């Protein structure tokens, strides 16, 4: 038993040592050179699977590039690690704020707790949080969108375009944010044409499984829906949406893109004839807008919600086949007016 107690002592001592060692070093933020007199520009912190999704996150990057060009910023964008916790996100935002970036924007609702914590520590810096309005603070802009409104219009377009009376919805990950896309889409379809079936499917349960970042998953889901006679597919699935569009092109059915105007994207140029339209979410504008407001000395704060009315969300008409189809356009216009004047209320779930 003597040995046991020795090990217990060693264990406690080690733990105690760890604590004291921690207590004596200086902290990284207090010692790093805080050269925050000059604004370096804006900083984006992505969530897992961010950069290069041709969709949501890249839209944020586009906003950053635009701000860089206009204000001569040297902005930065940082990607996360796998399996990190809120503490890591907090540390990341803190580092960015300390280094003098303003505004600091967390892309994705996962940053909410971190933004909330760090914003309190850096009252002079403006923070942005995309897709979250769970809290408000004086120096935080909650950049949120009426995704369901654009999705409603996508639903109207899909209902008009379908010949088989079966349309499909493919969500990247089964989360409330994507449920909004689905709800708006379904309502749009139902209000436009009776008897159209919406096949609904989510690729994964969690983002960690790759629902937003696996074109192969999107493709096989799309193949399945096409087999079930769907001839218009709406994908709200980030990078995975590319697979959906590819499958649609291969089977000569319509795909509806999301977040950015996917008809115009180089990576999808091969398939663009099959991209009917895109339900756009102007993350680019929101990011740029926040940066501009900071630059102009009147930082935005509180909930900034993009809607059809303020152009924060919209339906693209770059595909001539879509833009020139009068019947469809009329229906879409009518629905848009209805949403704007409040005669149509789009559900969010």
């Amino acid at each position, binding site marked *: 038993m003597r040995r*046991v107690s020795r090990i217990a002592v060693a264990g406690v001592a080690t733990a105690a040592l760890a604590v004291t060692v921690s207590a004596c070093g200086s902290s990284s933020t207090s010692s790093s050179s805080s050269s925050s007199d000059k604004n370096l520009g804006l900083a984006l912190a992505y969530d897992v699977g961010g950069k290069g999704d041709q969709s949501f996150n890249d839209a944020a990057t586009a906003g950053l590039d635009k701000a860089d060009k206009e204000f001569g910023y040297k902005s930065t964008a940082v990607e996360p690690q796998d399996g990190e916790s809120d503490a890591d996100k907090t540390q990341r935002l803190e580092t960015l704020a300390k280094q003098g970036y303003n505004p600091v924007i967390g892309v994705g609702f996962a940053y909410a707790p971190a933004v909330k914590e760090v914003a309190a520590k850096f009252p002079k810096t403006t923070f942005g949080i995309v897709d979250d309005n769970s809290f408000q603070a004086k120096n935080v802009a909650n950049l949120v969108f009426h995704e369901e409104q654009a999705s409603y219009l996508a639903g109207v377009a899909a209902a008009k375009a379908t010949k088989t009376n079966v349309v499909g919805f493919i969500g990247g990950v089964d989360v409330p944010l994507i449920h909004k896309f689905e709800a708006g889409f379904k309502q749009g379809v139902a209000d436009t044409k009776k008897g159209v079936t919406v096949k609904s499917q989510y690729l*994964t*349960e969690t983002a960690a499984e790759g629902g937003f970042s696996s074109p192969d998953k999107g493709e096989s889901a799309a193949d399945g829906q096409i087999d079930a006679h769907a001839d218009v597919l709406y994908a709200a699935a980030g990078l995975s949406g590319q697979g959906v569009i590819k499958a649609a092109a291969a089977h000569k059915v319509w795909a509806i893109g999301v977040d950015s105007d996917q008809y115009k994207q180089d990576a999808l140029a091969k398939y663009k004839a099959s991209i009917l339209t895109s339900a756009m979410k102007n993350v680019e504008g929101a990011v740029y807008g926040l940066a501009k407001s900071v630059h102009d000395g009147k930082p935005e704060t509180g909930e900034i919600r993009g809607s059809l009315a303020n152009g924060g969300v919209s339906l693209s008409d770059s595909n001539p086949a879509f833009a020139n189809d009068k019947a469809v356009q009329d229906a879409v216009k009518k629905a848009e007016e209805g949403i704007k004047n409040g005669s149509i209320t789009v559900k969010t779930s």
Partner: protein
Amino acid sequence: MKKFDKERVLVAVAGPVIALVAAVLLTSVVLIASGKNPFEPYRLMLEQAGYSDVQVLIVNQASLYYIAAIAVALGFRMNLFNIGVDGQYRLGAMMTAVVGAHVALPSFLQVPMLLLVGALTGAMWAGIAGVLKVTRGVSEVVATIMLNSIATSVIGYLTLTDNLGVLVGDNVTTGIMKDSGWVPGIDLGQDVGEIYGLVFLAVALGIAYWLVLNRTRFGFDLRATGESETAAAASGVNAKRMVLTAMLISGAVAGISGLPLLLGDVHTYSLSFPAGLGFTAIGIALLGRNNPGGIALAALLWAFLDKASPALDYAVPVAYEKEIATIMQGLIVFAVVISYEAVRQWGLRRQQKQVGAQLAAEAANPNAHKEVAA
């Protein structure tokens, strides 16, 4: 006897040291190949380790790694590969968060109760794989991998707002836990942060792990089964019961591995609760040679690589990719597997040779041996 003790220490230390050195060298090769300074990143990362707030992050993260790796190591010690630690961990954390949000006992009851909930959930989940293996011969590797996926879906279902979920913005959570279940940490100041109170749970688990394995009859049976299933069976170990028990304990430990974070910091299970801990833990258990002390060092090393590497992104004048740390972690796992096996065989041969030589010397001088024996 002294000599063989030293021998064993040598063999025990040689593996990880060789692995680490190899991993560092190979990482430097990667850096050189991509035209970067091959040493600067290490200096930057070590500098980070000197900052107290980074140290707090490291210790906190290591506590999660440690508990999960102990769960993996328990399985390893009896030749069970519990790949399901990740699912057991997430499910355990979620159930604990749910119970913590709905039940409010006094703190001295609430915390043990929550630990029990986490442990039972993890044990139940791992137990499914155990029962399948015992009754149907299903490999625990396959069963636990599948249970990981099933856990994901179960969590997705249970956290639907119709069931137990609470929507915060667009994030699905299980609601904030009652504060009697919050475990206070050691606050080291505004700039530095807080060390999770349950870091001490990790330490206690490490001690318990050592005691059970090395000082109890049960632990001996478990190790014997791991070393030679046939010998254990002949010595009277009920292999099936052992498999089931080991799975249950491993799962119970896995079930509480997320609790330092849950009870010490976030107080809710949400979409942003870190996933993948159980897989990282496999590497850590390997690196730590299933030894409680070794695992502690390995967990700290892993946490260090995790927490010191983000600084590489902001380094001036030249930024490095923080993925260097990920590359290094991968290389460590590789190197560990190879070097351990090599060192193990080398050690075995070396000992056999020494024993042979010693006995040959005795045989050459039989009278001397007789004197010793008499």
